[in-house]
């Protein structure tokens, strides 16, 4: 038995080596080059063999850059939290309802996934711009006299990103909720726990992996999102992503672009580590 399993495993490893090699060449190697480019000087876009910390000190000492970094992290955390808060009730209902409309409701909840981020951001721009629907409505109601300047705004970027990432959160949470046996909830209630108590001490802890996963997914995508901050933001609401685009494609300063990329990457890993640590603590 052990022998046959080992032999079987060998074939699988061999097959897995192909995609693993693909990832090593086209993912790990480029990331390593990015890491080294961030600590090298560059001439005409190409990094030269001269170590420097200048790229990072430039990014961390200029107020514009530092603000962008902090703004991006704030956006990521807020969007992650919003996605969970909004996604949970929906995912809960979709996994628990016995309505025959359930498949349709699921399709409806996930349908925004089919629209590109640009489609979804466009709607918010139409609502919030100076001649937009919200200003129009407020003026018609007589609540304001002159149109409000709602864009560019970090708050609207957050709304736009939460909207764009909500289906991902719902998917993650539904997967977690499906793993919960509804009989456990019934048992808790039959033993006298109220609905809130049942939710807080049975359902939520059992789905914590989905909550953490959904938050991380939303945070990671949000801090690296380019289109939404580019459309709903402006020069005063730069994020890491919009700055990286300027460095790489407009200013052609690949060193600064790489360094900012490394900061973005480090942020993702820091939050991943923190969340996993918190998850482990709550589990034990």
């Amino acid at each position, binding site marked *: 038995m052990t022998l046959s399993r080992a032999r079987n495993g060998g074939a699988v490893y061999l097959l897995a080596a192909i995609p693993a090699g*693909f990832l090593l060449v086209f993912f790990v190697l480029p*990331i390593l080059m*990015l890491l080294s*480019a961030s600590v090298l000087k560059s001439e005409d876009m190409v990094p030269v063999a001269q170590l420097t910390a200048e790229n990072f000190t430039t990014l961390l000492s200029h107020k514009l850059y530092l603000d962008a970094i902090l703004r991006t992290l704030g956006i990521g955390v807020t969007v992650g939290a919003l996605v969970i808060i909004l996604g949970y009730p929906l995912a809960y209902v979709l996994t628990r309802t016995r309505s025959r409309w359930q498949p349709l409701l699921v399709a409806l909840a996930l349908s925004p996934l089919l629209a590109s981020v*640009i489609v979804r951001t466009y709607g918010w721009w139409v609502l919030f711009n100076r001649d937009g629907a919200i200003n129009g409505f407020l003026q018609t109601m007589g609540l304001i006299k002159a149109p409000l300047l709602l864009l560019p705004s970090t708050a609207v970027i957050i709304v736009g990103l939460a909207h764009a990432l909500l289906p991902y959160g719902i998917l993650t949470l539904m997967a977690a909720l499906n793993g919960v046996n509804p009989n456990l909830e019934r048992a808790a209630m039959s033993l006298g726990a109220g609905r809130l108590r049942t939710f807080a001490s049975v359902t939520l802890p059992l789905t914590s992996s989905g909550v953490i996963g959904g938050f991380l997914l939303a945070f*990671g995508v949000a801090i690296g999102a380019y289109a939404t901050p580019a459309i709903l933001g402006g020069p005063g609401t730069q994020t890491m992503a919009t700055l990286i685009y300027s460095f790489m494609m407009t200013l052609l300063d690949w060193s600064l672009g790489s360094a900012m990329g490394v900061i973005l990457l480090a942020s993702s890993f820091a939050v991943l580590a923190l969340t996993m640590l918190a998850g482990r603590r709550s589990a034990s």
Partner: protein
Amino acid sequence: MSRRIAPHRIVLWTVVALIYAFMLVPIAITATVSFNAVDRSYFPPRGFSLHWWAMAMSPQWTGPFLFSLKLAALSAIATAILGLPLGLALRRPAFAGRGVLLALIMGPLVLPSLVTGIALLQFLTIAGVGDWLGLPALIIGHVIICLPFMVRTLSVSLESIPRNAEIAAASLGASRLVVLREVTLPLARSGAGAGMIFAFISSFDDINLALFVARPGQQPLTVQIMQFLEYGFSPTLAALSILSLLVPLALVAVFGRLVGIGSFIYQDHGHA
């Protein structure tokens, strides 16, 4: 079952209705804006015109549109081919290097795809294969960012069957190949299908990576729109957005049922 509706249900469904509105209203707004008679994105629209829809269907836009479809299909297929062996390998509970392999696959999930994009741009340029930028680089990049989803959905569907099912099949005399073909792969099918649909959509919608590794003439729709946006918002983009929504929608409606993506997402509580 009584028809009387409990109060907690009313609260819950109201919340749910509001969240649905939040999700769908902006898309509905985009759709209506495309019918404006003037070259402004007014909502509610002023006048009625199909002019912007005609503009959206001009060759300027059908080219990138078809390019995006081709890119998404190729990325989805490549992701499935590379993902299946990974999913099967990771099923084994403990082997040397399992953690490393998992980190390797899930890395791109933790990494913003924009970082993967600039890394790939630099790598291909410095490695002297700058002419891969365009379709080849886009496929490579999209496979990298879609593999974590593929492996995850595969793992979920592979774990959904008790190991006993395979052991039972083997004990009843099925060879390892037969077990793989008759028990394991049919279970993996829903996961692979869901992963491919994810991959197709991620590729079709991606802008963060495509922004850096596309090239003029080989640009997906999203990048083209983003560049067009520098000249301001036009109702053409609204029409285009809705058009770009229809193709994947049709695809999922047909293909999603075929691979049973529904049963993958919500395993009915009725069945054991």
